[in-house]
């Protein structure tokens, strides 16, 4: 979503009717994309029964003005959000730290076995959580980490994706700059902190956004190692929407809207980094 320097359409803006028809197409597609979100907001405002009884209208009926407040208290969203926030903060901080450190080792330190280590690290990219989950649940259980912060975060404190991405950034630092830093007497830590990280800040930021997104949105892992309601993250809390009494179903729907808000804010304020992070995967292949 960077400034659209190129356009597949005509390079000129074209005549008015042509522009108008593009706006029409864009608007129609926007309605298609946004319709589910609109319906979710509408349906959060009142119970399903109200809508069914009135023949499924597209507009809000019998609005319950306090619905988001009720969702917040009844669904214990405060606790769930706080837990998700803590878990996400730990995971993002840890992933940034471990990825930066290992990316640095793979980019600027010479030692035996470096290449082999790199391939081992990258091999973990081929192991989705779904594959290793059964043994990992065993491990976490035997450590007594069910229903705990440690359990929710431990497997995600390091990621090869971040290592790869940040290493690409580090390798883009010109050799002359490293040489200049050597003459300036910067040791590895000083070079990392004063030069490497500031220069690759866009890459680091993009990765941070992606790390946030995947940590906040986690579902399978917390579902597997949490069996007490008070350790439910916000995403797991959403599971109960279908189990609820039909007259309270819209509470779960309202909760889903609240759950999506932090990421929505991220999309709006950090769109540039988010887009770069998401497309970095495509560039990487």
């Amino acid at each position, binding site marked *: 979503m960077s400034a659209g320097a190129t356009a597949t359409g005509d390079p000129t803006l074209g005549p008015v009717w042509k522009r108008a028809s593009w706006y029409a197409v864009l608007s129609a597609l926007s309605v298609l994309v946004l319709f589910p979100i609109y319906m979710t907001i509408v349906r959060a405002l009142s119970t399903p029964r109200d809508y069914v009884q009135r023949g499924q209208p597209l507009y809000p009926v019998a609005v319950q003005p306090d619905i988001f407040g009720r969702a917040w208290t009844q669904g214990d969203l405060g606790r769930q959000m706080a837990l998700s926030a803590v878990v996400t903060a730990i995971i993002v901080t840890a992933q940034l730290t471990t990825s930066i450190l290992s990316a640095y080792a793979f980019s600027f330190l010479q030692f035996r076995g470096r290449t082999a280590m790199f391939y081992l690290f990258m091999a973990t990219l081929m192991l989705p959580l779904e594959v290793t989950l059964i043994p990992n649940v065993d491990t976490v259980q035997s450590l007594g980490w069910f229903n705990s912060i440690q359990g929710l975060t431990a497997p995600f404190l390091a990621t090869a994706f971040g290592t790869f991405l940040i290493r690409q950034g580090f390798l883009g630092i*010109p050799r002359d*700059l490293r*040489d*200049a830093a*050597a*003459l*300036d*007497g910067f040791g590895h830590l*000083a070079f990392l902190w004063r030069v490497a990280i*500031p220069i690759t800040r866009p890459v680091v930021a993009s990765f941070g956004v992606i790390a946030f997104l995947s940590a906040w949105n986690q579902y399978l892992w917390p579902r597997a190692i949490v069996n007490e309601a008070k350790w439910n993250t916000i995403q797991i809390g959403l599971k109960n929407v279908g189990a609820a009494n039909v007259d309270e179903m819209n509470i779960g729907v309202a909760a889903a809207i609240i759950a999506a808000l932090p990421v929505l804010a991220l999309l709006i304020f950090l769109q540039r980094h988010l887009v770069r992070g998401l497309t970095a995967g495509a560039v990487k292949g």
Partner: protein
Amino acid sequence: MLADVVSVSVSRVLFEDVTKSFGEVVAVDSLDLEVIDGEFLVLLGPSGCGKTTVLRMVAGLETVTQGTLRIGNRVVNDVEAKDRDVAMVFQSYALYPHMNVRKNIESPLVARHFSVDGGAPRKLTASERSQRITQAAETLGLASLLDRKPAALSGGQRQRVALARAIVSRPAAFLMDEPLSNLDAKLRAETRLELVELHRKLGTTIIYVTHDQVEAMTMADRIAVISDGRLQQVGAAQEVYDRPSNLFVAHFMGSPPMNTFEATVAGGGREGEVTGAAGRVRIDAGPAISLPPVGSRVVVGVRPEHLRSQGHGQQGRQQEGLRARVSAVEWLGYERHVICDVAGRTITLREPAEGQAPNLGEEIYLDVVANHVLLFDPATSERIP
């Protein structure tokens, strides 16, 4: 021992049989070279000849494979870059893009220890640093740019920042790796003069790498010509130009390059003759030199400016010198280059752009200024003394 330390000039750089190899590839081969304290020495050679590797070894960015490298009287083979008391200006300038000009200039002062007024090395205080930055910035006319980032500077300004960053640490020697190659022609000529001026002002040793002989000849106290990792010749610009020690230097220095062709010594003594396919050339070898025996094969070298064309366009003139056919004439305003075919070899003649130029295809005769002819041994390529 202490007397030694004091007596030896601090910024001499001495290579003793220095070799650098990267695996199988020998980049620098048994280099013996002394860079004299305070001189402006240019390492000149074609790209890939090893000159940059020589510089990087001095900087401590490459290790020395074999031999001894000294800065001052200290063997620095195992000394880290930051402790060598040298500053480097890179071809790309290597400015930190995220720091402003002030921070860039300051960067060599932050982590290193300096001996102030002969005291024990220590870190500089903030006020000492800012004083040095101000001084360096003023020297290079950067005072008004201190808060800008490199991206907001012109190429010439970036180059100055790189220089300021080098002088701020007051090093024993400056190492410069083609620092002017990213500037446009006009700015390059100006900066050449400024560098010479800076060198005169600071009196610090400069080792300067370039492939551009104009830079070398205009700035250097001495030029060290390097090819294939070997030192070919070292000397003042005039000396290297006038008396190249071998065919490589003869061909590399000068534009257009020296003309060379094979010939046989026809008459001995101080003033002799050689004959080649295209005719005879008289040689005045000078008092100290004797020609090889009659019948020896030699390579004759003549600079384009030491050839004279016999009045072309005239008929029935004497037919002496080298018979040549004009194949092209290049006009440069103040002079012209006449490119001729002499018995299958291309010979270039440089003459003032006066009078009528020879016509294409015309047959002319070239005279050689006898006391400027050089002879080379065809087997070794070395100049015959």
